[in-house]
């Protein structure tokens, strides 16, 4: 039994248990301390990643550690830590404190970490479900609000469909090849094809790619905003690391996978970007932008190519940072009485909150893909990878979709900066945790834009 391989998960697990017990004993006024304790757990777990020896495997090869898994865990832990720090003040100001919140985030995180550590479809399933069920609860946390319930219910129903597709897909693959291990998959019969198709659909659902995106806008809008910032970032990173693995091992065994994934990607890009124009709520707009991004990311899975995969993982990480930043600014603004994220609410807030407005504008510019911010490098890498593999058509569509997307991000900026203020909102405090999280994500967006080699080279060696 190699306990060392499980070190980050064990640290996280004991942190969760501790939080669980403390939450039972302590009153609500200790909520902030609990969140900070959760943050400490995350930091410890991230630190322990450094001490894991790799490659290693344990639990009868059900749990493997590779450099690839470890960097994925590190990304997940980093973003979750930021989410925790940015979350507490929102719930305290809103007067709806749920002590369960910190450890729910951590359980979802644990689920993803387990999912990424396994080469076995059954264990991947267990990890994925641990995370998904936790996220259904997280979305529905505002029990008294209609939208929160609606979002959670939709997410639950559609998500469960995805789960069953994943289970059935794994079953069919097992039936065809006689193994659940990723590395042994080389079937050719229709059974195998059907299984792979189901697996693909299940994962497309989890990353909210068209045509399985219906839950996304409602779940994003219904969830408390800090939870949305979790929902839009951590699962994305985890799912794409998983998808890269699955693409290499399983999808590429199917002759038509490239075409199927290409269609899903193109549909998501254009659907997401065009629908975003129709939105009146900035939170929903960002949800559609995440559907569009799911399209960009999926584009990189159409071929097994080192450059494409590396750029994809880099892109998804920096995208997560920028999206996290944008949602955090929204959650800070939402602390104001009566704030609904409607466009009209954003009119002229730059006068009142020049700092928040500029930070949000910065993240939106980042998402457009304007250099020197990091997303540009991700887009460039994917584009270069596509043309390198002679997928010129997809490359051109990718650029076109990026161009289309500039308009709606810009609309938010225009409302914030160039419109006159219509209503006095009163002030909103920015808590220490929020400002720290914003600072880190801003600096990271610039740092990875100017010095992307720091991560890119590392990823390139691992993919």
């Amino acid at each position, binding site marked *: 039994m190699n306990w060392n391989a499980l070190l980050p998960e064990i640290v996280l697990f004991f942190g969760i248990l501790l939080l669980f017990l403390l939450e039972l004993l302590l009153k609500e006024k200790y909520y902030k301390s609990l969140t900070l304790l959760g943050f400490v757990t995350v930091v410890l777990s991230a630190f322990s990643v450094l001490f894991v020896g790799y490659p290693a495997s344990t639990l009868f090869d059900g749990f493997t550690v590779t450099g690839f898994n470890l960097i994925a865990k590190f990304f997940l832990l980093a973003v979750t830590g930021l989410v925790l720090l940015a979350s507490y003040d929102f719930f305290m100001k809103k007067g709806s404190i749920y002590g369960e919140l910190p450890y729910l985030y951590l359980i979802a995180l644990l689920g993803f970490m387990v999912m990424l550590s396994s080469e076995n479809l059954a264990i991947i399933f267990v990890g994925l479900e641990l995370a998904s069920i936790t996220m259904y609860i997280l979305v529905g946390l505002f029990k008294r609000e209609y939208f929160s319930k609606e979002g959670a219910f939709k997410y639950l129903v559609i998500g469960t469909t995805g789960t069953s597709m994943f289970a059935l897909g794994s079953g069919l693959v097992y039936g065809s090849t006689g193994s659940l291990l990723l590395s042994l998959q080389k079937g050719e019969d229709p059974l195998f094809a059907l299984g792979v198709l189901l697996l693909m659909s299940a994962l497309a659902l989890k990353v909210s790619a068209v045509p399985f995106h219906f839950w996304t806008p409602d779940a994003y809008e219904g969830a408390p905003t800090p939870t949305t910032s979790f929902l839009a970032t951590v699962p994305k990173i985890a799912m794409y690391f998983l998808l890269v693995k699955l693409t290499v091992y399983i999808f590429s065994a199917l002759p038509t996978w490239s075409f199927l994934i290409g269609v899903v990607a193109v549909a998501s890009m254009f659907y997401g970007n065009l629908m975003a124009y129709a939105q009146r709520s900035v939170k929903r707009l960002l949800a559609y932008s995440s559907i569009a991004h799911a399209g960009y990311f999926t584009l990189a899975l159409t071929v097994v190519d080192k*450059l494409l995969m*590396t750029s994809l993982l880099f892109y998804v990480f920096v995208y997560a940072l920028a999206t996290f930043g944008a949602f955090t600014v929204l959650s800070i603004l939402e602390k104001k009485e009566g704030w609904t994220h409607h466009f009209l609410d954003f009119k002229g807030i730059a006068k009142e909150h*020049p700092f928040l407005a500029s930070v949000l504008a910065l993240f939106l*510019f980042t998402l457009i893909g*304007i*250099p*020197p911010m990091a997303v*540009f*490098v991700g887009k*460039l*890498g994917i*584009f*270069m990878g596509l*043309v*390198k593999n002679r997928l010129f058509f997809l*490359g*051109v569509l990718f*650029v076109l979709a*990026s*161009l289309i997307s*500039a*308009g709606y991000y*810009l609309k938010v900026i*225009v409302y914030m*900066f*160039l*419109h006159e203020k219509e209503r006095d909102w009163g002030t909103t405090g920015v808590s220490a945790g929020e400002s720290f999280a914003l600072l880190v994500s801003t600096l990271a967006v610039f740092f990875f834009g100017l*010095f*992307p*080699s720091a991560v*890119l*080279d590392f990823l*390139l060696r691992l993919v």
Partner: protein
Amino acid sequence: MELLLSLVIFLPLLTAGVIAIVRNEGFTKVASVVVSGTVFLLSLVLFFNFDFSREGFQFVTKLDWIPTLGISYHLGLDGMAVSLVVMTALLFFAVFVWSWKIEDRPILYTALFLLLETACLGVFSALDFFLFYIFWEGMLIPMYFIIGFWGHERKVYAANKFFIYTFFGSLFLLLGLASIIVYGYFATGQITFDYLEHAKMGYPLWIQLVSFLLFGIGFAVKIPMFPVHTWLPDAHVEAPTAGSVILAGVLLKMGTFGFVRYSLSLFPDASKYYIPLIFALSVIAIIYAAMMAIAQTHIKRLIAYSSISHMGIVTLGTFALDKDALNGAVYMMIAHGLSSGALFFAAGFIYDRIHSYNMDDLGGLARYLPNFAVFFMISGLAGIGLPGLAGFIAEFLVLLGTFKAHPVWAVIAGTGMILGAAYFLYMYKRVMLEEETISDHRKERWAQLRDVEFHHVIPFVLILFVAFVMGLYPAPFVRIVDHTVKLVFGG
């Protein structure tokens, strides 16, 4: 010397960071003037140390940046670039001195202009496509906010129009860059963003034809050339004075610079192929924009159209594929940068004093603002190419060079000069001379007007001094520009 170039580029950026942290208005103004002055002096050091007898790029810095994608931090200057760097530094210094008395959010204003300065200097110095593109886009956001925050009535409309046009153009530029980099990958087996590597490559004709168009659209929007010029008058009319100066003086040059640096030397065959297209668009721009200028009653709109007309001369000279014409085109970039900068300063001064750009509200100002009248006159004459000022040498060289191979086009373009004199003199008459039309009430009010102050005089004197030097003794400047011409046409 190599480090000096990086210092010149990034000093404004660092200052922007410092003033954002210090957040003190007095400090901001002093720092902006001191730093932009220093940058100007340092750029002069570069200029005088530039060895124009030696071929190839100078002050070259090359560091690995993103090796995975073949991207490096690669800077260097040729004769054209070093002249444009000096002109940019000069104009930014002038702008900061001019803005000494700005009251509306001076810290943000200064910081945005400093960011803009870094981006502009970077565009002229970058020798790596990725770096070039970062600087190219980097100018977009500061300029957007400068127009959007400090502009006049329809600033939001103008800022959005500016952003959408420019962003649209940039994407074509990006596609063009991508296309040659992809070609480079298939030809040599590795991805490289290095300009010098690509300059050696020699593309087949079909790549040249496609990429030339993609690059060309990107540059044409920025210049702006005839069918995509409509953003410029709006942006100028709504932009604050300093924004207009930089827009006309520096940003428009980025497009023509791109044509000379990238289109001509990377796609020589395509440049020949597209001569009729470019000539037609240029000549249309020269004549049509000049005629539009005559029809305007808004001073800034008039100057904006005159810019489009002058930029037509630059593109004409660039693609005449003649040494003299190219020499003249590059000369024109600098001459126009100076003269249009001075003219927009003049328009801004009128607005500061009388709060109108409309010729119907003006007239007979020369009596009340005598010193200003002199500056305005010289600026205008520099713009229309009076002998003895920089614009004349430029226009003369362009027409001379074009005439050798394409006499008909040169003759048609030459009529633009006459129209140029017409619109400027017409404007000067309506604004400064014509006393009969103004009412007694206005005369009383204008008797109180204050003539140019010290912070107005410095920009005018600096800019016009350089324009005179370049007009009276062009030999050293022509030799510097000749350095680029040699690079393009190979000796």
